[in-house]
């Protein structure tokens, strides 16, 4: 009878198709986003996250149309991210039917954008996505830094400090991706997750590295995540969402079954 932890399948989309790469490379085609969203929703997904990895203007138009199509058929929360840089971008996505937008690179280059966005649209729809990489050496206290450009550029910003700052600016939720783990199937970076989750009052979505159902459990129980995001284990049919939910519930986690 408590708030349920959430499972969020993530759709990385390029020019209207769902794709999934390993460490942001080696893209594989995984299908039609509307069809996949509907399937996940029917299977009991608690939310859908749609990340647009298209850079071109034409691609963005396709994305808006895709979001409209998903929102007209899927009645669970929908987060849209990728290339959100202006208040106008946010308005466009919300009008297309997104419930939340995820801001990543733009937050790093212009932190005040997060404040303006939260003031204009409300914290409930502002997710700040952070890509973090471990920078401490073995034996040192663990430390993570924020990276941009798909994990290629270091910023020198400490991940925990950054999370605190983004929440103070009005972020309503944090989507936390481990760049070391993304696409590796070796599990979440639990130290990173726990450090960030315990440092802020808002919910944390753990992302990057899920390979087994136990990884999802560990993300919640050890990493203190409020929600877990995964792509490839669901896209390529290794596990279904009901299987994942049942497994987590059996381990004592409150789920919506």
């Amino acid at each position, binding site marked *: *009878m*408590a*708030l*349920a*932890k*959430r499972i969020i399948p993530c759709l990385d989309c390029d020019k209207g198709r769902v794709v999934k790469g390993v460490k942001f490379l080696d893209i594989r085609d995984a299908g039609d986003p509307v069809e996949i969203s509907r399937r996940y*929703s029917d299977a009991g997904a*608690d939310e859908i996250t749609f990340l647009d990895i298209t850079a071109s203007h034409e691609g963005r138009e396709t994305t808006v149309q895709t979001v409209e199509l998903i*929102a*007209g*058929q899927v*009645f*669970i*929360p929908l987060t849209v991210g990728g290339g959100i840089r202006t208040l106008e971008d946010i308005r466009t996505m*919300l*009008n*297309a*039917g*997104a*419930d939340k937008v995820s801001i990543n690179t733009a937050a790093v280059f212009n932190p005040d954008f997060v404040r303006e966005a939260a*003031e204009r*649209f*409300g*914290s*409930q*729809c502002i997710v700040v996505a952070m890509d973090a990489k471990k920078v401490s050496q073995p034996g040192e206290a663990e430390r993570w830094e924020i990276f941009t450009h798909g994990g290629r550029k270091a910023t020198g910003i400490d991940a925990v400090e950054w999370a*605190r700052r983004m929440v103070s600016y009005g972020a*309503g*939720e944090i989507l936390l991706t481990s760049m070391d783990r993304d696409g590796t199937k070796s599990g979440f970076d639990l130290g990173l997750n726990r450090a960030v989750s*315990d*440092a*802020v*009052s*808002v*919910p944390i979505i753990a992302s990057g590295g899920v390979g087994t159902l136990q990884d999802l459990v560990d993300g919640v129980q050890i990493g203190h995540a*409020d*929600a877990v995001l995964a792509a490839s284990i669901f896209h390529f049919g290794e596990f279904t969402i009901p299987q994942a939910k049942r497994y987590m519930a059996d381990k004592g986690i409150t789920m*919506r079954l």
Partner: protein
Amino acid sequence: MKKVAVIDYGMGNLHSVAKALEHVGDNVKVLVTSDAKAIAQADHVIFPGVGAIRDCMAEIRRLHIDEIVAEVSRTKPLLAICVGMQALMDSSEENGGVPCLGLVHGEVRFFGNVDAGAVGDTTRACSGLRDDDGAPLKVPHMGWNCVRQTDHHPLWRGIEDNTRFYFVHSYYVTLGAGEKASGLTRYGVEFTAALNKGNLFAVQFHPEKSQHGGLQLLRNFLAWDGTH
């Protein structure tokens, strides 16, 4: 043809509510509008809301939505959602204290103020809110939580007791004496997840985002004549 007006005062995403109504309703025309005449001509009215209450109330007053909602609350089936529900109350403690419409008596309170002084765990930046096992709770209350039905209102028809609905909010309604809750939810504290008053029904959660249970509630709303 049934006409449904979704009141638009510039706050948030009304597309979701409109799409969900179109999805569940046969022969339903959904109008997203701030026009008093169009709202007066509708058969059913939805009063949504997201964002900060101060901005919501400012727009509600500027566009004279307050008068429209007061009128509709006496005359036809009205469903208020999330901040729309909060706006019906006497006042909210958000933004340093904001007077609201006073159509339902009660207050809107912040989750984070619950017993904040009594928190011993200094390793976590928590709100002061605790679950039944003493673990810290995040604010906003975001995600799927159970709603315990406290009456047999027509809007619960076909929805099992303790069904999970999708919530996203940092403030919650506490009802004044004489007001009636239709549903209660626990998140550190027990709060009013749904209330009814005559032809008015209000929910803190988002039925348009709550899949089967939420769509059923919207279907029930479209079939409701406003009596209980």
